């Protein structure tokens, strides 16, 4: 059997690099320039892979109120989540739900009609940081919700901009980088790259 025995093994390299990083990369955000780059998938996979490469608990937060696929994938669209935590109606710890993975938990988006206030973001994170070794945040696309991503960046240790191979436009990536330039320079992750490309292995 090949090394790719499970879907999450696609993200092993990224998880290993995060885990081995000398910097304290504990709070990680994943976003794309636009919808469809695969940021949610990479966030989900990286969280699962982080749960595999070390024994500490990992939390994945679905902060993508625009396209909350992680919450929907977990079958928790109606469950109280991040939105309720930010409003102060529920404790963050109480909103976290376990997943099938022993080390990974989920804080669903908590879909609401109004966008929740982001002022309490830091206090919410302080409590979560104590309980989880890694916190992975699935963010909305930069060019759709620039303000939201910038707000989240204040509490994140590292922001990753996911670019989907064969469909990610350089022009959009450049725009996303320009939008984030005043606050941070995200690291790029090439998603769904062709494994046959020799250059891929050489650079990775």
């Amino acid at each position, binding site marked *: 059997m090949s090394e790719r025995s499970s*879907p999450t093994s696609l993200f092993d390299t*990224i998880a290993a690099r995060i885990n081995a990083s000398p910097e304290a990369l504990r709070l990680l955000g994943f976003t794309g320039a636009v919808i469809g780059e*695969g940021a949610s998938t990479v966030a989900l*996979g990286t969280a699962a892979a982080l749960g595999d490469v070390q024994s500490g608990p990992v939390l994945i937060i679905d902060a993508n109120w625009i396209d909350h696929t992680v919450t929907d994938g977990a079958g928790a669209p109606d469950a109280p989540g991040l939105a309720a935590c930010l409003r102060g109606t529920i404790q963050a710890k109480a909103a976290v739900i376990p997943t099938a993975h022993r080390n990974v938990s989920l804080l669903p988006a908590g879909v609401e009609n109004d966008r929740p206030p982001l002022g309490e973001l830091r206090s919410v994170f302080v409590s979560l940081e104590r309980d989880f070794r890694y916190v992975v945040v699935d963010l909305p696309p930069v060019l759709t919700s620039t303000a939201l991503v910038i707000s989240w960046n204040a509490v994140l240790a590292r922001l990753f901009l996911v670019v989907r191979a064969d469909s990610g436009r350089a022009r959009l990536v450049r725009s996303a980088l320009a939008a984030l330039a005043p606050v941070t320079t995200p690291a790029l992750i090439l998603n769904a790259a062709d494994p046959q490309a020799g*250059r891929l292995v050489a650079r990775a």
Partner: protein
Amino acid sequence: MERYIQTAKRLWLLVALTFALVAVPGLFAAYTEYTTTFQSDATVWVERADEQYQTGRADDPNLFGRISPGAEQAEIFSQLVQTNSFIIEVIGQTSLQPAYEAAEDKDGFRGEVRKRLRGQALGTNLVRLSYQAREPGIAAEMVTAALVAREGRVKNARLAATTTATAFYQREFEIAQRQALVAQTALEQFNRSRPTPLPENEVYQQSQLRLAVDVAQVRLNDLRSRLDRGAVSTALLDMAENVQFQVIDRPQADPFPTGGTRGASLIATVALVGALALAICLVVVATVLDDRIRDLVGLSRFRDVEVFGVVEKATGTARDATAQTLFDAPDGPSAIRRRTA
């Protein structure tokens, strides 16, 4: 180069469609050109009788300016074709006449005929006259008619030239006749008015008058001989024409397409080359305008940004598989559903 190949592979249907859109009509036009071209030609042996046995001198400054009879006749024929009267005369002798009469755009009709009628030098003394028609039979008619029209024009031109020379000599002859008559009359009057024997001073005057009569008579005889020679040379030139312009191969009316291979090949080549060029342009433009990021090389254009990692393409849908791993336990309902329950 690899980028262009990838673009070509990605857009193969569009590239193939573009290629086909240009190449197929072009090839069809080439096929139509081939099947609807009926060429007929006549091969003519030409000579220049007056220079046939003349040897050129090495120091003759006009030596290099001379052209062979074949090239000369081909050029003459090409010039004749440029005239409307010649074309009309040729058409008038063929079965195209009713079509020409009925045509609204007569200039266009003549232009089409002009384009298809060609004179070509095959060698120093060989000329080929050809016509390419759209229907069988017409081409042979046109070439035959062109030969006839050319012959008629040559004869008319020669007649006109001979007539001019004859008229000139005739007028000179009449003047010389009058001068001879005047001289003769003057001599006779002198003889009648003087008794014989003449004194010595009048003998000299009489001899001067007799000399004038003799000179006038000599000129008269000279002009008469020139007039006779002119008539003879016209007859000789007419006879020599048959030797100087011999139709070796008469035009044949072939029932099957002929002569269209070259034109069809040209059309097909242009169509294929054009289609290929268009397809290449399409690929180049699509590649240049395509700013999609395909691999790490594509990401390298963002020089100041760190490339943290690469997620390889999964065989299935990575998101579904990952979500299934996290949220669906292999032996029961999902974590959320378990919790809700």
